[in-house]
């Protein structure tokens, strides 16, 4: 048994020696793999750096754009709700911005209706400002 095991291990050693002699590069694969892992880690780090630089540039672009030519956007109430589109918020906006199109101008009668009127957006017409048309006698326009 010991003889057999010895013979087998000799054979294995011989095969290994032949293979190493034939292609030493193949057995340096572990070193190469380690190098590639290092390379990959390096590329990932560079990628992350580029990505963060990209983000900073985008931020800079937006800031430059907003500070150079564009006015600050209109602010709204802090309420974060769709249902907040109530008559109350409409009238408050109307009072602060006379140019806001918060009224409804009936096309046929040229009457102006406010948000509380039954004819508001219920007749053929368009949105209008507080000074257009003639005020509705029911709602006051």
């Amino acid at each position, binding site marked *: 048994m010991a003889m057999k095991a010895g013979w087998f291990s000799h054979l294995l050693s011989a095969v290994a020696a032949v293979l190493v002699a034939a292609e030493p590069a193949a057995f340096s*694969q572990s070193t*190469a793999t380690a190098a*590639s892992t290092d390379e990959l880690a390096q590329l990932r780090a560079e990628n992350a750096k580029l990505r963060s630089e990209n*983000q900073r540039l*985008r931020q800079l672009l937006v800031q430059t754009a907003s500070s150079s030519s564009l006015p600050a956007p*209109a602010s*709204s109430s802090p309420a*974060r709700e769709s*249902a907040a589109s109530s008559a109350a918020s409409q009238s408050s906006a109307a009072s602060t911005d006379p140019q806001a199109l918060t009224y409804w101008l009936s096309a046929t009668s040229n009457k102006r209706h406010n948000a509380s009127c039954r004819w508001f957006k219920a007749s053929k017409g368009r949105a209008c400002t507080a000074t257009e048309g003639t005020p509705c006698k029911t709602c006051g326009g």
Partner: protein
Amino acid sequence: VQDVRRLKGSIGEAAAPRMVLLPLLLLLGLLFPEPAWAETIRVTTWNLEWFPSGVANRRLPKVEARRIEEAARVIAILNPDVLLLQEVRDWDACQKLTEAIDAFCAGAASPPLRFEVAVCSAFKEGNVLGWQQTAILSKAPAQAAWSSEWTTSGAVDPPRGYSFALLRIGGKDLGFYSVHLKSNLVRGNGARERQLNILKRELSAEQLIAHTDALPKDFPDGIQGFVIGGDLNTNRDEFVSERTLSILEEAGFTDSFAGVPFASRITHPAKGGYPDTTFDYLFLKGLRPLAPPEILSTKVSDHLPVTCELALPP
């Protein structure tokens, strides 16, 4: 990465000619498979705050046009492939936004960014069309797109619904949702209202998951990935007991903000008594974020756009 592939190729070339080593290398390849090379896409979610007027009323066309230009400029800088929008008034507003993006690029002599409006919802508030719709804009044409309102369950009546688009990107069919869940507005009985708001969000999340589960029946070729993006109006910092985010995670979605510290995920900066908070999310299934989401600071809306670069599934 191409360099790495080339490097790996050279390793393979050195070892390959030897017939004896080839099976060994194949075995190694099977044991330690390389990650498949995948395309990437950029997805942005943005609540545009009563777009385009900025308030709950219509404003003069020139005022609205200026705000459309402001939003278009930010979007062109962000350059996403898919844009998930909330609080947009209607299809027309979305269409004008795409045109403004195109015009901005032309003016800046940069390559055109041509978006198509895949879907814009038409949710009703009572009997009238709401002005806080959800929409999906994409550079790739939609294979399918629609929107649907949430269904009521007993006394719990969640507002709005979802917009959905199926897009083929990089040879993959991907499903995108844009959602805007119930806000935290409270009137009258505060405690009860707060609880009801949470319930509405949870119910919406459950319906959303049910939809993602049911979709494969309509698309036998399968959907390789999902993105749920939008203003979820919740977070784990303030709403500890709420299950909305957990419902999505339990269904296999991952939060792209997972592991990101609070200071780096403020999507709704403090305003009018409300603190800094995270309300806007991108939840992913089958897609992998290449980096934590980027949040661009801008005054166009009270919410900030959240953008994430994603690796497509192999």
